[in-house]
């Protein structure tokens, strides 16, 4: 005799005007080939992918455009401002990205992943320029997803100037170090979601492998954004699948509520009725 399991459905992730059915956002950079990228995106289960804005390579007519390899009906594009080191360039880049997406008629035209870097070695964000750019982009009508450090104070400030989502880094971009300071992520979550539980918080950057994604999701973040961990894995396609399952497993575990950690054991089998005279 069996009965249908009753598990309350997890509503899809809402970020501003966008509804995402996968909580994994995947970058399109660093793959060996466009085919490998296409297959990795497909296997990751994502419905949202990040892209960068760059000058046309005017003298390389044989080079294929990334856009030839992307199913624009399937994926919501999230243009970034990667490579910008001040608010002015980030705002300019965001507007160029929006113009391209409007031409593509992709639903991602109204949002941007804001990334304003401070330093080429660490690629850590510049909090002052990020905050200024966020304000300007909000005023220009963008839904702004802000890449930032895991500092809860800056996270709060970004939300207060109108960021649609705050995206703290687990560790430096592409470093694969995972979530270095889970306590800061916990405080970010408390500060940003305390009186606003649906406010989106995404861990962006630093993921090295599937357990990092699961850990982030178990902390209670709404999603994870990653790129290098798939693109530079020895087998990107297999890692894309791992990331998909890790996102789902971490989310399910978070919703399930983990048991508290205890110092001592707690037997899983009954302690009564044990055969033998030494039973205690």
């Amino acid at each position: 005799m069996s009965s249908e399991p009753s598990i309350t459905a997890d509503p899809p992730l809402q970020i501003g005007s966008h509804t995402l059915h996968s909580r994994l956002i995947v970058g399109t950079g660093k793959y060996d080939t466009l085919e490998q990228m296409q297959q990795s995106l497909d296997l990751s289960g994502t419905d949202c992918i990040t892209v960068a804005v760059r000058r046309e390579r005017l003298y390389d007519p044989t080079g294929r455009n990334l856009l030839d390899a992307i199913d624009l009906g399937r994926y919501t594009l999230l243009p970034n401002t990667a490579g910008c080191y001040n608010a002015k360039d980030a705002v300019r880049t965001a507007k160029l990205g929006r113009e391209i997406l409007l031409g593509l008629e992709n639903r991602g035209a109204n949002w941007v992943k804001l990334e304003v870097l401070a330093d080429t070695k660490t690629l850590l964000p510049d909090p002052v320029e990020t905050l200024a750019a966020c304000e300007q982009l909000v005023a220009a009508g963008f839904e702004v997803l802000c890449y930032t450090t895991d500092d809860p104070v800056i996270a709060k400030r970004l939300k207060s100037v109108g960021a649609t989502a705050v995206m703290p880094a687990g560790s430096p971009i592409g470093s694969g170090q995972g979530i270095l300071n889970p306590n800061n992520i916990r405080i970010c979550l408390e500060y940003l979601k305390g009186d606003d539980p649906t406010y989106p918080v995404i861990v962006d950057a630093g993921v090295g492998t599937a357990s990092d994604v699961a850990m982030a999701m178990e902390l209670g973040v709404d999603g994870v954004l990653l790129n290098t961990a798939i693109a530079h894995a020895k087998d990107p396609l297999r890692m894309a699948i791992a990331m998909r399952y890790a996102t789902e497993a971490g989310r399910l575990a978070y919703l399930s509520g983990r048991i508290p950690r205890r110092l001592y054991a707690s037997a899983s089998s009954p302690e009564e009725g044990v055969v033998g005279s030494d039973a205690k």
Partner: protein
Amino acid sequence: MFVQLNAQRREISPGTHLAELIRQLELNPKFLAVELNGELCPRDEHASTVLNEGDELEIVTLVGGG
């Protein structure tokens, strides 16, 4: 006459408009955005925007990124 295109000097015929330049470059106009002298030039103005000597153009597209 000359314009600066993505920080490189390029000779074009006087009277060339932006849409014509994009055609000459064999670029897919759907995949790009253009800045003219620091200001975004919307797609629907490409055909009516005549380029002048010394104009600074940035033509960008999307590439892989995280």
